[in-house]
C-alpha cells in the first residue's frame, strides 16, 4: 500500500492512500495532535468529504484498537524486510529481579543494542515504552535487534 505524504507548512502533514475497494482516504495529522479523516470521492480533484475528526486522546484510543492485534504481525513484516534484524518476545518472569523495577534499570539497549519497542501486558499494549516504564511480572517485552542481542535481553531479564 502506498501512502503519500503531503507537507502542510505550519499545520502538520497530510497522508493519502487508496483502500483495496478503491476509496481514496486522506488523514490530516496536525501539530496539535488532532486528526481529520476525509475521503476523496470521484474524479473531481476539488471534492472532499469530511469523515470525522479525532482529538489526541481519541486518536490514541483508535491506535490502540487497531494496533493491538497487529503489533506482532507488523514486527514480523519489518524483520523480513531488514536482513539481520529480528523480533523476539521476552517474558518478565515472576522471579526476575526486574519485576517491579523500571525498563531503564535493565539497561537492555545499552548492553545488547536491542530496542524494546512494546510491552504486552495482558490485553494492553504499551507501545514505545520509555525508560521510566515499570515492568511487572508476566509482561512480554517485544524486542527488535540482532538474534544475539535478543538472547542478551533474555539473559538480562532472567538474571
Amino acid at each position, binding site marked *: 500500500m502506498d501512502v503519500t505524504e503531503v507537507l*502542510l*507548512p*505550519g499545520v502538520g502533514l497530510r497522508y493519502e492512500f487508496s483502500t483495496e475497494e478503491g476509496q481514496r482516504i486522506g488523514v490530516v495529522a*496536525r501539530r496539535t495532535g488532532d486528526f*481529520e479523516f476525509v475521503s476523496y470521492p470521484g474524479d473531481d480533484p476539488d471534492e472532499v468529504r469530511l469523515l470525522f475528526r479525532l482529538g489526541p486522546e481519541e486518536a490514541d484510543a483508535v491506535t490502540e484498537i487497531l494496533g493491538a492485534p497487529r503489533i506482532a504481525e507488523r514486527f514480523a513484516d519489518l524483520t523480513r524486510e531488514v536482513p539481520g534484524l529480528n523480533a523476539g518476545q521476552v517474558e518478565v518472569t515472576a522471579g526476575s529481579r526486574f519485576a517491579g523495577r523500571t525498563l531503564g534499570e535493565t539497561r537492555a539497549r545499552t548492553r545488547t543494542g536491542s530496542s524494546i519497542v512494546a510491552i504486552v501486558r495482558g490485553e494492553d499494549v504499551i507501545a514505545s515504552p520509555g525508560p521510566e516504564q515499570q515492568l511487572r511480572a508476566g509482561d512480554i517485552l517485544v524486542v527488535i535487534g540482532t538474534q544475539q542481542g535478543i538472547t542478551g535481553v533474555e539473559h538480562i531479564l532472567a538474571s
Partner: protein
Amino acid sequence: MHTSVALLMELGIVLAVLGAAGTITRRFGVSPVPLYLLVGLLMGEGGIAPLPAAGEFIEVGASIGVVLLLLSLGLEFSVEEFTVTLRRHVPSGLVDMVANAAPGAVAGWLLGLDATGIVALAGVTWVSSSTIVSRLLDDLHRLAYRETPVVLSILLLEDFAMAVYLPILAVLAAGGGLLHGMASVAVAVGVLAVALAVSHRWGHRVGRLVDDRDTEQLLLRIIGLSLIVAAAAELAGTSAAVGAFLVGLAVTGPLAGRLRRVIAPLRDLFAAAFFLAIGLSVPPAALVPLLPVALALAVVSTGTKILTGWYAAGRHGAGPRGRLRAGTVLAVRGEFSIIIVGLVALPGNPLGPLATAYVLVLAIAGPLLTWWVSPPPVRRFQPEPAA
C-alpha cells in the same frame, strides 16, 4: 505605589469592549483584527472617546505586541519545511510577489509617495495574513483540500520574504545614503542567513538556553531573550520585529511547540494593543478621503491574489473550484500589512490611513468572499444535548 485609577478604568473598558465585540466576530468566523483597528480609530485623536491615560500604556504594549507576533511567527517556522517548500513552490511565490506587489507600487507612485512609501505600499498589498488565512482554512474544513498545501506554502514563503523585506524597509525608512543603505541591507540579510544556519545546526543549544520544565521560567526566559535581541536589532538599524523573528527561528522541535502554546495568549493580548495603537495613530478624518483609493486597491489586489491562487493551485493539480478557493482565501491582508505601516508611517503621511482602510476592507471582505465562494463542506457534528 500609586495606582492610576484612570489608567485602569480606561484600559479595562477598552479590553472589555474588544472582548465583547470579539465574541461577535468569532461567531461569524471573521478575524478580530479589523475590529481592533476600528476601536482604535474611534478612540484616537478626533475620535469619540479619547484615552488620555491609557494611551501611553497601549503604545508600550504595541511594541511588545509586534515582538511577540514575530516571535511566534518564527516559532511556527521550521527550516525543513522551508527547504521542502522552496524546492517545490518558488514559481508560485514569485508570481505571488510580482502580481501583488505591483498594485501597491503603482498606487504609491500615482499617489506621489516617495520611494520608501512605494516599497511599503507594495509590501502592504503583497502579503496575505497568515493568521487569518490559516484560521479560515481550519474553520472552513479545508485542510484536506488539494490546494491547501499550496496556499500554506505561499504563506510560508511570504512570511520568510518578510524577514528580508522588513529590514530593507527599515533601512529605507531611516534614510541615509545609498551606500549606507546597501550596507545595512547586506548586514540584515547576512544576520538572517546566520540565524538560519544556527537554527539548523545548533537549534537544540539555543533551546537549552531557554528550556525549563517550569512554564513560568520558560516564559520569562524566552520573552526576556526576545526583547533583548529585538532591542539590539533596533539599535543595529534593522527592526525590533526582525530580531524577535530570528529568536523564534532559532528555537525548533518540541520546545518550539511548547513555546507556541505558552506565548499564544500573551501574544494575542499584546497584539490587540498593537492593532489598537495603529488605529489610535490614525485620525478618522484622514481616513475618509482615502477610502475610495483603499477600496479600488482592495478590488484590484483581490483580483491579483485570485490570479496568484489560480496559477499556484493549478500547478499542483487542483481543479477550477480549488483554484478559485486558493485565490480567494489568499485575498485577506492583515497583521503584516499593519506591521509594515507601523514601520514607516509618519503623522501627515497618507500611507498610515490608506493602509489602515485597506486592511480594514480586506480583513472583513476577504473572509466573507472566501466563505461565499465555497462554504464549509459539512456542518460540524452537533452533539446531542445531555439528558
